[in-house]
């Protein structure tokens, strides 16, 4: 909890930047246009963006003051190892999304599950095999069933 003001500060800053981008670029360009009796197509999105901007600026300012009061620095160098620890699952899943796009999911699934188990330190082979096989078999059964009743 102690690093909450710092988290708030940076997330507030990030969100504020996002809101500014939405307001100045994305919503005016892609928000749609057209004559309307009631509200312009962009109106609600713009209101939402202003709400975000207002809240995030207040949040940033408040947490900056809190940090200053406590005499803590605004920047804390993130631990690289920790960052990597947080990032690799995303890369892992992204990699498999690319694979799923190329190959049938029923082929990729055992690798996806088994690989993650091995990475997480599971070394009992029967656990890996069973955990990978059962959901895949379930998926296979489901697709076969759906095909037969004629949904897909």
């Amino acid at each position, binding site marked *: 909890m102690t690093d909450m003001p710092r988290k708030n500060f940076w997330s507030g800053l990030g969100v504020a930047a996002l809101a500014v981008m939405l307001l100045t670029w994305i919503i005016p360009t892609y928000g749609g246009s*057209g004559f309307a*009796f*009631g509200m312009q197509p962009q109106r609600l999105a713009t209101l939402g963006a202003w709400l975000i901007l207002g809240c995030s600026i207040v949040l940033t300012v408040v947490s900056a003051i809190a940090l200053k009061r406590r005499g803590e620095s605004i920047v804390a160098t993130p631990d690289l190892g920790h960052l990597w620890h947080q990032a690799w699952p995303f890369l892992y899943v992204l990699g498999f999304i690319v694979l799923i796009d190329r190959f*049938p999911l*029923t082929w990729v699934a055992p690798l996806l599950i088994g690989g993650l188990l091995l990475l997480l330190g599971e070394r009992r082979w029967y656990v890996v095999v069973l955990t990978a096989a059962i959901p895949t078999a379930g998926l296979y059964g489901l697709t076969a069933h759906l095909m037969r009743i*004629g*949904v897909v």
Partner: protein
Amino acid sequence: MKMKLLGTAVLSAAMAVGVAGQVQADDFPTKPLTLVVGWGAGGSTDIQARVLANVLEEELGQPVNVVNQPGAGGGVALARLANSTDEGYTFVFGTSMTITFGPLSTETTYGLDDFRYVAGVTLGQSAIVTGEDRPFGDSWEDLVAYAQENPGTSYANQTALDRMIIEYIAQREGLDLRIVPTSGGAGMAPLILSGDVDFAYSGGTHSGYAETGEMPVLLSLAEDRLVAYPDAPTLQEAGYDINAAEIRVAMVPKDTPDAHVERLAEALKAATQDERFIEVTEERILMPVTWMPEEEVTQTLRDQVEGYKALLEELGGLPEDE
């Protein structure tokens, strides 16, 4: 995408074919068909399509799979069908409005001539409706008179087509209407029932209120008077030369071989006489089943498009066209 997913399920498809049996050597269809619905699951088009698929399956001797491709008021499904080279194995069951008015009101990659219209099987029952105890009662003439005296009379619209029609009427009768958008019958009904809106377009919701009389019909937008509301005049009877009749049609790409179209039409004709199809259409969706062969549907649709074009010109283009 789906095919990839199902790469390993080919086995079961083969089984399905085997079960269906009766594969005639070089006769259409020799493999399962796909019936595409341009709306989400659970809607009236979808409910009807699923029963239709069951009936067709028996008629054609091949499985008929229903696939939903919702989006753009049925437009997404048609855009895909236009590029299909499936020779009739993939066909769309949908409403005529998507193909007649869709290309006029929005930019589409398809037009009326990109498809063959195998048959029309159901007549839409869309209407202009109002609520109970309105100052103008439930007659169209009184409503027009009321709206002429009361600028700001409100109308709830659902589709670009009904919006065009009401703007045309407003222009002709000199009305100053407040046109409120709503989504579907579920959005329209509370506005009418609570009295917040004076009158509205209804695709078919009013049929469910025929017994209680909570949603009187002012005008029928179908070609004839509505089954459940025989007292309300049609657009033409009220003096507007517009044919906005909605027809539910089966469509295939334009280069589909004649033999395939004929076979499908045959099966559809049998479906219109099938009890299950009639029951779900006339008792659940409350629309009359009909039979319109290819030439008749195509001609009707063509006439509608011409009519809409003329209307649009008279209105000086739709506000949507930017």
